[in-house]
């Protein structure tokens, strides 16, 4: 192929001529330093290239080498527990080879070529296979059995299949197809900008259980669903993303740190090996893939990082797993788009963002879903996406927020006012919504309890009434409210402080099982209904406000999952105390 010739360098954008063999979005190597770039515009034989590494020191006249391939990721055993940069270079190995700082032109394969994995076939010679069939399960970590799939588009008869320890590049199977013999290794490649293929898309039906009360109970996201968390800085986006990465019941988590703080990735790297998965007891890192393009790393790779992440996630989905992608933050990705678009001198849309921002955002979130995977066994996989958005000044009219809200089904609205009060997670319960409530109703009724939906409705009604009553109280003073209204305020306060508020760094409170959430919520609603009954029997609000059991209700969140029946005892104590108030009040009257 022809070798291109640089004619202009402007930041991450390089323009080269003599590029007649180039195709859009092909990967190129820029200069003798072999910097990685991608073609994003073609005019005649002149190509504009976004370069994924620092371009300082490049100049006109230097060569550009074509690879003829689109930007792709390597898929195979070894992905889990790895940390990659935006274009899937392994950061831990880069550190071993080149030191603490990332220098340029590093060319290291994403997956370790020397490590051997035990391959034990599940199919035999002579069996016919189609793309997506499971050839074998390789034990990647204690938590993940990596299913080796027949590559998409390959179908035929197994000529030969081996058993033993192999590296990812060694051939393990030969399939005879119409076109000839196809050699299969454990490593596959897939272009990141093309969604991976599946058989059929389905409507999500089960909740992604996160252990976060405000999310699971009020604004749940379904397995295969999409959610976004917009919020100003300091409102706790990253903490929510981390909590979901830690505790959600996905089998594989892909965490994309896109243009965010370096220390946040370090935090994940240092903390996850020590955190135990609440279901299996194994370290959480054993189900996690990390993609890190921190804010000081080259901007163009930031644009690629979310595609790299979601392609890896789709690959695990295709094995039949429930996968969750956390993208923090999609605003940085959009800004990278804007920066490159500006340098291409494209006509800007809103706020300088390119006009195609909306369609790019929609394309990204649409890669989520519950699907029937390729392959004869028709297994089901889900891919859920949770994206953080960082709008300037927390302003929700920001184009990235608006483009995102148009496509996602769950909106967790983070509010700085709540954060200032240290009400975390600072998710506003009146602004947020989830469109999956109906989808997962069946699951809740069956698994959690028939009454759960009614409880949630009562709680939400109390919160709504609270906001109206607060308005009135602000105008006329709390003293002029009726006892019944004051009880409503008190109960709503209890929902806010004792249920919605959750301490991410408290060893017990950080995770609440659905059972515990159910018990806690019933307790608070019971407190409300029992107190209301007492009020009707003539007990004064003052007496109800001084119930001793209130303190136990407030502390219910710190009850360990193993001693969950303690909540039932609080409930009994509540009944007794109310009973005694009612009979005591009767005596006085």
């Amino acid at each position, binding site marked *: 192929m022809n070798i291109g010739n640089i004619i202009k360098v402007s930041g991450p954008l390089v323009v080269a001529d003599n590029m007649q063999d180039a195709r859009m979005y092909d990967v190129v190597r820029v200069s003798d330093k072999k910097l990685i770039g991608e073609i994003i515009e073609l005019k005649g034989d002149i190509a504009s290239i976004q370069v994924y590494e620092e371009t300082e020191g490049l100049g006109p006249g230097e060569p550009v080498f074509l690879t003829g391939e689109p930007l792709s990721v390597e898929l195979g055993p070894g992905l889990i527990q790895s940390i990659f940069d935006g274009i899937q270079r392994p950061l831990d190995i880069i550190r071993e080879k080149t030191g603490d700082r990332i220098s340029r032109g590093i060319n290291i394969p994403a997956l370790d070529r020397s490590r051997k994995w035990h391959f034990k076939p599940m199919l035999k010679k002579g069996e016919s296979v189609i793309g997506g069939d499971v050839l074998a399960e390789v034990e990647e970590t204690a938590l993940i059995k990596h299913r080796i799939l027949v590559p998409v588009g390959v179908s035929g008869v197994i000529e030969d299949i081996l058993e033993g320890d192999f590296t990812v590049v060694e051939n393990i199977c030969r399939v005879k197809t119409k076109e000839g013999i196809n050699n299969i290794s454990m490593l596959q490649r897939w272009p990141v900008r093309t969604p991976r293929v599946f058989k059929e898309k389905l409507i999500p039906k089960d909740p992604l259980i996160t252990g976060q009360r405000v999310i699971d109970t009020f604004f749940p996201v379904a397995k295969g669903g999409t959610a976004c968390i917009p919020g100003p800085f300091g409102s706790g986006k990253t903490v929510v993303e981390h909590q979901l990465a830690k505790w959600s019941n996905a089998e594989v988590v892909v965490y994309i740190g896109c243009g965010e703080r*370096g220390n946040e990735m370090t935090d994940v790297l240092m903390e996850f090996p020590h955190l135990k998965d609440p279901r299996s007891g194994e370290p959480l890192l054993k189900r996690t893939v990390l993609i890190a393009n921190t804010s000081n790393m080259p901007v163009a790779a930031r644009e690629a990082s979310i595609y790299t992440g979601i392609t890896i996630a789709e690959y695990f989905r295709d094995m039949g797993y429930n996968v969750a992608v956390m993208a923090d933050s999609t605003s940085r990705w959009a800004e990278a788009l804007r920066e490159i678009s500006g340098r291409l001198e494209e006509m800007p849309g809103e706020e300088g963002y390119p006009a195609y921002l909306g369609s790019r955002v929609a394309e990204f979130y649409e890669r989520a879903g519950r699907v029937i995977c390729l392959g004869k066994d028709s297994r089901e996989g889900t891919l859920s996406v949770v994206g953080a958005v960082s709008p300037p000044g927390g302003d929700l009219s920001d184009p990235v927020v608006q483009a995102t809200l148009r496509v996602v089904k769950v909106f967790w609205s983070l509010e700085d006012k709540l954060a200032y009060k240290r009400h975390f997670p600072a998710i506003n319960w009146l602004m947020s919504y989830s469109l999956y409530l109906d989808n997962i109703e069946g699951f809740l009724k069956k698994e959690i309890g028939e009454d759960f939906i009614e409880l949630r409705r009562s709680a939400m009604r109390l919160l709504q009434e609270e906001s109206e009553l607060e308005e009135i109280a602000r105008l006329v003073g709390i003293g002029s409210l009726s006892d019944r209204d004051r009880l409503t305020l008190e109960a709503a306060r209890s929902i806010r402080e004792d249920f919605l508020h959750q301490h991410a760094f408290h060893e017990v409170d950080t995770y609440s099982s659905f059972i515990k959430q159910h018990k806690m919520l019933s307790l608070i609603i019971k407190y409300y209904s029992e107190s209301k009954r007492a009020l009707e029997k003539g007990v004064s609000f003052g007496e109800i406000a001084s119930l001793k059991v209130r303190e136990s209700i407030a502390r219910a969140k710190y009850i360990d999952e193993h001693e969950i029946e303690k909540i039932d005892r609080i409930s009994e104590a509540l009944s007794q105390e109310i009973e005694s108030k009612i009979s005591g009040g009767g005596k006085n009257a």
Partner: protein
Amino acid sequence: MLKEYLTVSSIVGPLVFVEKIEDVKYGEIAQIEFGDGNIRMGRVLEVSTDVALVQVFEGTRGIDVYKSKVKFLGKGIELGVSLDMLGRVFDGFGRPKDGGPQILAEKDIGISGNPLNPCARNYPSEFIQTGISAIDGLNTLVRGQKLPIFSGSGLPHSKIAAQIARQAKVLGKEEKFAVVFGAMGITFEEAEFFISDFKDTGAIERAVLFMNLADESAIERIATPRMALTCAEYLAFEKNMHVLVILSDMTMYCEALREVSAARKEIPGRRGYPGYLYTDLATLYERAGRIREKPGSITLIPVLTMPEDDKTHPIPDLTGYITEGQTILSRELHRKGIYPPIDVLPSLSRLKDKGIGKGKTREDHSDVLNQLFACYARGREAKELAVILGEAALSDIDRLYSKFSDRFEDEFLRQGEYEDRTIAETLNIGWKLLAIFPKEELKRVREEYLSKYYNKL
């Protein structure tokens, strides 16, 4: 022999266009010689086959199209570093400004700095005691953190920054410590305040100062923080020192960036600032931190003045998205005569949770700070309500909260400029204030700490 070009074709604002160039690289440093022999420095911002666009750091005044000679030096901007830099004052471009001799550089380092591999970072977790209760108690600073001060014009941010520089220490350790100060566009008086404060306390011996004052070239400011951080990286990661970097004022830096962007006719982002402002600021702020297996650290305190005290202005906004929290100063507290006027509610330290608690500060720290925040927030709300409805309309408990918020501002926040409180003192003041509430109100504190500290001090 380097080629000299006499081919300057046009000059726009801080930018010079040089034609008919050969073999010029992006990011390369350029040296421009005037007709009268004066020399200025610049950097290549864009290069195509025959034109290079050079940004001139000392401004373009006096440059002429026909007589100026341009030389490209074949390397990026570098800073010569050495331990002799301690105790010295430099200009915004790293040249001695104190009349002292040139630095004999141990080596020259490019000032852009390569990004740190996230795998190489060590998570900051060592508590720094600043002696200021509002910071130590509620928005704790840890070693390797980047924690900006969001201020406004007329607020005492310099005093607070100087107090932190003076009092900051890690408990129970004697270690090599240095301060690097980068001044961008601050006034002579402000600069003098720092220099004399450093001199009075003897801190000047272990300080390096880079000064670009208000009357000096605005474009030079773009290089100044990079000079300061390059020097800090050398001291921290090669000489194993704990370096505190203060950069003041970031607003002036961003304006310089905007000036260049406007001259290049780039499509502006919000308020005319370039779309890459976030990325640019990140390449500065992210240079703070710690590296595994290296004893040194860089703790970064950028100071910025918010135009009209507006936190949503692009500069504080983007800064807040990159830094690990923020310390926000309040004009209202300042008017009440409270020093330091730190508005603790919107202030935040993201790294505090790993830096406090048993063995670091005190076991009860996390609970106490949550409780203080919750009480103060509710107290402020109660006070707002009282303004509308009158004190009488408050419930008994809200009156208590209102009283708490007054005492909190007066006893916890307020302290002397030279008052150095230990963390135990800070927490004990907190407990003293919390004691005005009945025990049941203190829901955020664990039972064990309540029985140990509540009303015991």
